């Protein structure tokens, strides 16, 4: 199984542990992730306005660089932008011509654009993964937190059921953890509002964490560095038992018995969500 | 003035033959009339019971005899008075249209439209559009029977 891999900015910085653990797991699973040469920004946000073609330049450059090979990313934001940019390229000829002409690349929407979770589920298969689990996460009560970007808009992302997704729970089950389902797992964490409106993000995060805790979770997994940041940094002091937040890949590597550590958003190790 | 001369002059007017299904499009044409809508007089309607009655040979004959455009109008798929006529018509006339274009006719010269009996406005609009398109294309000379022309002129 061979894929081109797009890391994105955060995975080379604060979310290094997501990349490290995912790469280690991929290598052990025989999934070849070949990093794109001289990659640039994914585009950060998908432009929702028809004339904002400028913002499409970097994702389309990335898509074209994959040259038709399947393109995998780990960060849900990167995956979201790439997937939607691809869909636009398939759907809107005019935009495609403008963007590809400007970039002087050939691209017409070909190639699969995948999140690493999809590779595990669809290409490798969780059944196959089960065989590679050496240290199952027995007794660990873990809830999945999906956030927005992997799921919506579901017509384009086609990742999972947008209201009742199961992919992360299925992964956790495979890893041997005790799966906890929290009803707020698909609600937004507040995203970049934490930059300007920290109060708003605190509300959304509080709700997500409370609900997970109520459901009995001791830890959360996510596929998005920003979600993780918000979950760890925007929750309010409430004196309750804190909840750990992991990248899905960290628990994956752990269950596979691979070396690697969880890196908190501020770089400190084993940092917990609430202080 | 002869027809041939007419055709090159600026006031050339195309002839559009419209085969209309009795149950929908023909009635749609009636409604356009009752509603006093207006469309070019270039369009002349022949009533057929159903677009499933449309033999492509009628279309070819019209072009032989001097039509510049032919329109077939039937009920919206699913609404056929005879339940399946327009489904059959859609396949037959689709195959014919492709062949017709393959023989070198401009695609605009032969069209099929679905117009219900309540769509007087659509009827008028389609006749207007069809006429305008044919006008822009100019007279059809493909497959035109020269002898028929001389009959035309003598009349």
């Amino acid at each position, binding site marked *: 199984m061979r894929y081109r891999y797009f890391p994105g900015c955060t995975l080379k910085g604060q979310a290094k542990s997501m990349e490290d653990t995912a790469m280690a797991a991929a290598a052990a699973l025989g999934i070849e992730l070949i990093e794109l040469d001289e990659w640039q920004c994914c585009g950060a946000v998908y432009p929702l306005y028809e004339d904002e073609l400028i913002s499409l330049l970097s994702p389309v450059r990335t898509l074209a660089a994959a040259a038709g090979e399947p393109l995998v990313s780990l960060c849900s934001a990167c995956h979201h932008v790439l997937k939607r940019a691809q869909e636009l390229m398939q759907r809107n000829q005019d935009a495609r011509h403008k963007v590809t002409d400007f970039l002087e690349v050939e691209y017409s929407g070909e190639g699969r654009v995948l999140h690493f979770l999809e590779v595990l589920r669809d290409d490798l298969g969780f059944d196959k993964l089960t065989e590679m689990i050496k240290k199952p996460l027995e007794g660990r009560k873990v809830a999945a937190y999906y956030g927005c970007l992997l799921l919506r808009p579901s017509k384009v992302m086609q990742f999972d059921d947008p209201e009742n997704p199961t992919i992360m729970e299925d992964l956790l089950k495979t890893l041997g953890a005790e799966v906890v389902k929290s009803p707020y797992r698909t609600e937004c964490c507040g995203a970049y509002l934490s930059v300007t409106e920290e109060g708003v993000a605190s509300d959304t995060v509080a709700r997500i964490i409370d609900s997970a805790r109520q459901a009995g979770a001791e830890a959360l997994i996510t596929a998005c560095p920003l979600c993780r940041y918000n979950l760890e940094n925007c929750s309010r002091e409430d004196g309750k038992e804190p909840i750990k937040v992991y990248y899905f890949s960290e628990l994956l590597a752990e269950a596979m018995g691979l070396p690697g550590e969880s890196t908190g958003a501020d770089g400190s190790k084993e940092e917990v969500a609430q202080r | 003035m002869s027809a041939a001369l007419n055709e090159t002059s600026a006031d050339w007017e195309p002839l559009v033959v419209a085969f209309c299904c009795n149950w929908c499009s023909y009635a749609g044409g009636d409604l356009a009339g009752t509603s006093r809508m207006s469309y070019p*007089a270039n369009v002349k309607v022949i009533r057929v019971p159903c677009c499933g009655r449309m033999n492509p040979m*009628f279309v070819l004959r019209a072009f032989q005899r001097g039509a510049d455009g032919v329109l077939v109008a039937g009920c919206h798929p699913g609404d056929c008075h005879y339940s399946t006529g327009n489904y059959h018509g859609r396949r037959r006339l689709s195959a014919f249209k492709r062949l017709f274009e393959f023989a070198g006719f401009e695609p605009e010269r032969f069209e099929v439209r679905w117009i219900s009996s309540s769509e007087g406005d659509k009827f008028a609009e389609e006749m207007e559009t069809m006429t305008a398109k044919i006008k822009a294309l100019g007279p059809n000379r493909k497959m035109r029977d020269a002898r028929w022309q001389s009959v035309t002129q003598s009349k």
Partner: protein
Amino acid sequence: MPRIGIFICHCGSNIAGTVDIEKSIEAARGFPGVVHVDEYRYLCSELGQDLIKKAIEEHNLDRVVVGTCSPRMHEVTFRKAVTEAGLNPYLLEVANIREHCSWVHKDIEKATPKAIALLRAAAAKAALNDPLVAPSVEVEKRALVIGGGIAGIQAALDIAEAGYIVDVVEREPSIGGRMAQLEKTFPTLDCSACILTPKMVEVAQHPNVSLLTYSEVEEVKGFVGQFDVKIKQKARYVDPVKCTGCGICYEKCPAKTPSEFEMGLAKRKAIYVPFPQAVPNIPVIDRDACLYFRKGRCQICAQECPPQAIDYEQQDQIIERRYGAIIVATGFDQMNPSHYGEYGYGQHPDILTGLEFERLFNASGPTGGKVVRLSDGKPPKKVVFIQCVGSRDKARGMNYCSKICCMYTAKQAILLKEKVPDAKSYVFYIDVRTAGKGYEEFQRRAAEEYDVAYLRGQVGKIFPESDHLMVHGVDSLSGKTIEIKADMVVLAVASVARADAPEVGRLVGINSDSYNFFNEAHPKLKPVETHTAGIFIAGACQAPKDIPETVAQASAAAVKVVGLLSKDMLQGEACTAEVNQAECSGCLYCEAVCPYSAISPVEIEERYHGGTLKRTVVEVNPTLCHGCGSCTVVCRSGTINLKGFSNEQILAEVDAICLQR
């Protein structure tokens, strides 16, 4: 050479204002075969018609062309006129110079040549017109009603009362339909069973009605007056003559399966009647659930049945009957809202659809008439009703308004308050639609007297938390988001066409709209007719509707049927297909495309090299043929032709129209 007379109508100034009558007359005189041309102010008037009749006599005309309004308007009038003058009505041809000419063109210079072209085409066609005779069809004085819900019951009763025989085919083991599932009806809160059951009994006992329950229509052939229908009566495995309806069989039966009638909220036995008031009160055995049929042993019902009515050997039966008219009253389904993930239907026992909730009120329902939560059996204290789940939703549901939900939600909120006095209802709505006699008053009563909180807005998502459902909604009037810790949520899901409606439509030969509801022939003026003569529709198979409307439509359909059956003969179609058997090669393509099975192969003998040769050709049954002409196009040699719209006639029209530009 034919002798054609052409008559041009001024229609006051309607035609004459835009078409130069003088010029038209002059041109018409030059058409081939035309021996007489005249004009009149109003040709359709008594005097105008006389003018035509007189001319036919005086000029010995054998074809008549009128340049008038649309043939859809007055063709019948003028056909009658020429008949009175001794001509076959099909020797008349109409040139539509009003709707298709004078009314749509303003310029007399352009309208006149067009009118002349249309007249020329009509004359060219008329020259080739043949006298035609429409076949007569005998009317079978028996009606078929498909569907035994309230619509079917009402229609059958009305037809039977008028003195005609009627058969009711019902797919389920009992008649009653959706109405039998309801507890009370709005806006009067009548008990549904109390008003329905007497009707069910009445229809079952009516001497003119035969009930064919647990039966399905398999095939419909033929045409108005003579529909030949095959009905499959499924094996009940219970002898209806011997069965006394004592109920011991289902009492003793050990096999259980979810009850369709209870929307899966309760179980029924493998041998069962769907509900206590079932008509006929004869159980059926569900083969898929029966231990004997599945595993070969049990037979408890047979052992216990006092009159020994159980018959495991019973077979499905095919009944073939001829009917003069058919009413389709197959009802509706409720949308399954599982795809609205945000509502979590199917994932939590306390999230119900309206019809499921309705069953909780019923004394014979899954909870014995106690309104309790299915999760823990406790009465719900806070119930959230969500309207428009799947209705008015072009993204994931149906674009239309389901019409009945506003009212039944108000009803259920009232009933809830009566059963659980300390319960509080919240209704999330987009608009409250209560058009109907007493409806608005009823809904207001719910809000004013029964303490039902109407919240104008929708629900974003339901979050199930430990022992309650957290409902996140909004009230747009106050501009406040709202969170309700609810005990139960009721979804007013869309009423949709039956899943098999398209199949039924194809089987019977009627068409549907884009939602698969059957189409009426005209949205205003022909609400119960379909485009197929002799087939009528009633009830919610046409569109969502409430009981009063359904009953009114059923009676209307019944009147149409009675009107039809009161005739002995019907006039068929004159413009039918005909075959030149000598040239028919017998490829049978025409047979394949005929929607009415009017074409069939027949063997003929032919002389060949001194001997005789048998070969297959086709023949057309003119009483079955509707004259669509689809066969003529697949007949490559033009051997099958359509009378009244023949190949020759259409080509002549093309030639004539193209003659003058």
